[in-house]
């Protein structure tokens, strides 16, 4: 009787062990080289498109692209969880100096950011000073900058957002945006939707999100276009980075080379309204 239960328990344990090992081995990788990217949602469309094109040309290689935000991209590439970390800010701005040193920066393109308003706002052009006054809450009505008598509704991004950091640095001269009074939205898509349906609203968006649902403002008379960013007359832009830990090798290297190749830079990059790195006549 006792031996019987003993044997039963032993066989139960064996089956458990087999099941466990099966479950664990399922996590193992298949053959063929595969890499993963994560990070900046601004760069996501480009990374995604380039990865699809690359995989179509090189069967067997597998590139998975996730969003998650610049902070996540930088953390994960530093920890070795992904092969490439996408970011719209320099690693030095987010990570500790000794951590940032281990990462290799590959700037793949430039993203321009424009101040956008609801189409019913009659203003087309603002000066830097006006923009600063609007976002710091000094100007609260559109009539003060030549528009109709309409309340200004600020819509901004979370304080750690890369887009916000760029906008603050190059459009607002590092002035602190008014907190509390502004609506805060996480996704560029939500920002676009909210601006398009909120009277008198103003926010900022990457060029890739601009369309006729919102109106992009000229800054000091300069239109926010790719050409103006490339020739240096429009100042609100940032490099898009692909970070690797150490020197890239294997598929990681060939994928980054592919993103920097003429094929991607002259076709996909402008199509998604990013600015190719080779077009830039100014440097930062």
């Amino acid at each position, binding site marked *: 009787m006792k031996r019987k239960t003993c044997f039963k328990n032993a066989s139960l344990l064996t089956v458990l062990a087999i099941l466990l090992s099966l479950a664990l081995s399922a996590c193992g990788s298949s053959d063929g080289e595969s890499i993963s990217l994560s990070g900046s949602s601004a760069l996501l469309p480009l990374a995604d498109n380039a990865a699809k094109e690359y995989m179509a040309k090189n069967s067997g290689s597998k590139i998975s692209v996730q969003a998650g935000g610049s*902070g*996540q991209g930088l*953390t994960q590439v530093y920890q070795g969880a992904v092969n490439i970390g996408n970011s719209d800010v320099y690693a030095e701005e987010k990570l500790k100096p000794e951590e940032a040193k281990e990462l290799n920066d590959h700037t793949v393109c430039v993203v321009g950011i424009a101040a956008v308003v609801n189409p019913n706002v009659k203003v087309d052009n603002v000066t830097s000073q006006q923009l600063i006054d609007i976002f710091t809450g000094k100007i609260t009505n559109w009539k003060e900058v030549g528009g109709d008598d309409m309340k200004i509704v600020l819509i901004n991004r979370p304080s750690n957002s890369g887009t916000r950091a760029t906008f603050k640095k190059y459009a607002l001269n590092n002035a602190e945006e008014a907190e509390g009074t502004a*609506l*805060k939205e996480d996704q560029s898509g939500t920002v676009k939707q909210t601006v398009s349906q*909120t009277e008198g609203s103003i926010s900022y968006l990457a060029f890739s999100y601009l369309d006729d649902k919102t109106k992009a403002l000229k800054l000091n008379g300069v239109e926010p276009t790719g050409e103006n960013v490339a020739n240096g007359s429009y100042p609100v832009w940032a490099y898009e980075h692909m970070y690797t830990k150490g020197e890239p090798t294997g598929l990681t290297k060939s994928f980054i080379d592919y993103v920097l190749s003429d094929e991607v830079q002259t076709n996909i990059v402008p199509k998604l309204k990013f600015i190719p790195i080779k077009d830039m006549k100014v440097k930062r």
Partner: protein
Amino acid sequence: MSKPNKRKITSHYIKTELLGKSLVTFFGIFLIILTISLVFFIASQGLSTFILDKQSPLKFLFSSKWDPLRDLSKGGPAIGALVFIFGSISVSSLALLISTPFSVAISVFMSEISPKFGKKILQPVIEIFVGIPSVVYGWIGLTLLVPFISKLTLTIPFIDKDINTTGKSLLTGGLVLSIMIFPTIASISYDALKALPKDFKEASFALGATRWQTIRKVLIPAALPGMLTGVVLGLARAFGEALAVQMVIGNNILFPKSIFDRANTMTSVITMEMGNAVSGTLEANALWSLAFLLLLISFLFIVIIHKIGAKGSFIK
């Protein structure tokens, strides 16, 4: 039925008994380990704000200044979460306030007034509501409800000229949430009413009570514990919902002055800031602390549900 012969470990025994037993045991144990390690992980991350970064837990709970990236020259990082805690509580209470009367009424209608129509039409409709993903609720809220509330606030003659007219408000969040939690409350209340013994109703009718009297004085009190379970489950769902609320509530870090003002919740600040936070920094840890607090609150809800369930469904 005859007892199966268990004398020998035959292949038949392995097929009919052992395989199933070990499978179930394996998944059971796996789930327990998973739960424990998950709680441990969130707790260890969440508590490091107070242990490693030496932030005061009291300040976290009772201060309303949230700025984890503030420079040391301006007073250093601040991680007061009171605005978010207040926002979460107020938006989910508002949702309950709107949703509970509807849900209870519908469950009564389905079980007592018109069982046929209820079963054929209302129940499938409610099930459809459950199946809609929360991002869809959020998107509908953003494109339909937000402009509507915006127009509504413009027409209300308020003394306060600074009233928020963007349509993103506590009220909008509460409305979206109330639609999301209504199927939970309605279907659990319906089940509670359905589970009542027939004797209750028949006895009440036999005493000469009308249908309305029976429902109000007998059936609802008898099913109350079950209904309350539904309400608490709905509250838990409302508390944990992130995306839909985040899209319509405005997310500014100030206390709302009225239900027409913008607010922020614990879940929406986590989803908004997590992507750009670098793990291991105070900013990320503070978000983990919020997540840990959410976990504790949901534990509290579960305890409440068990307490209500243990009471049983009997009229006092």
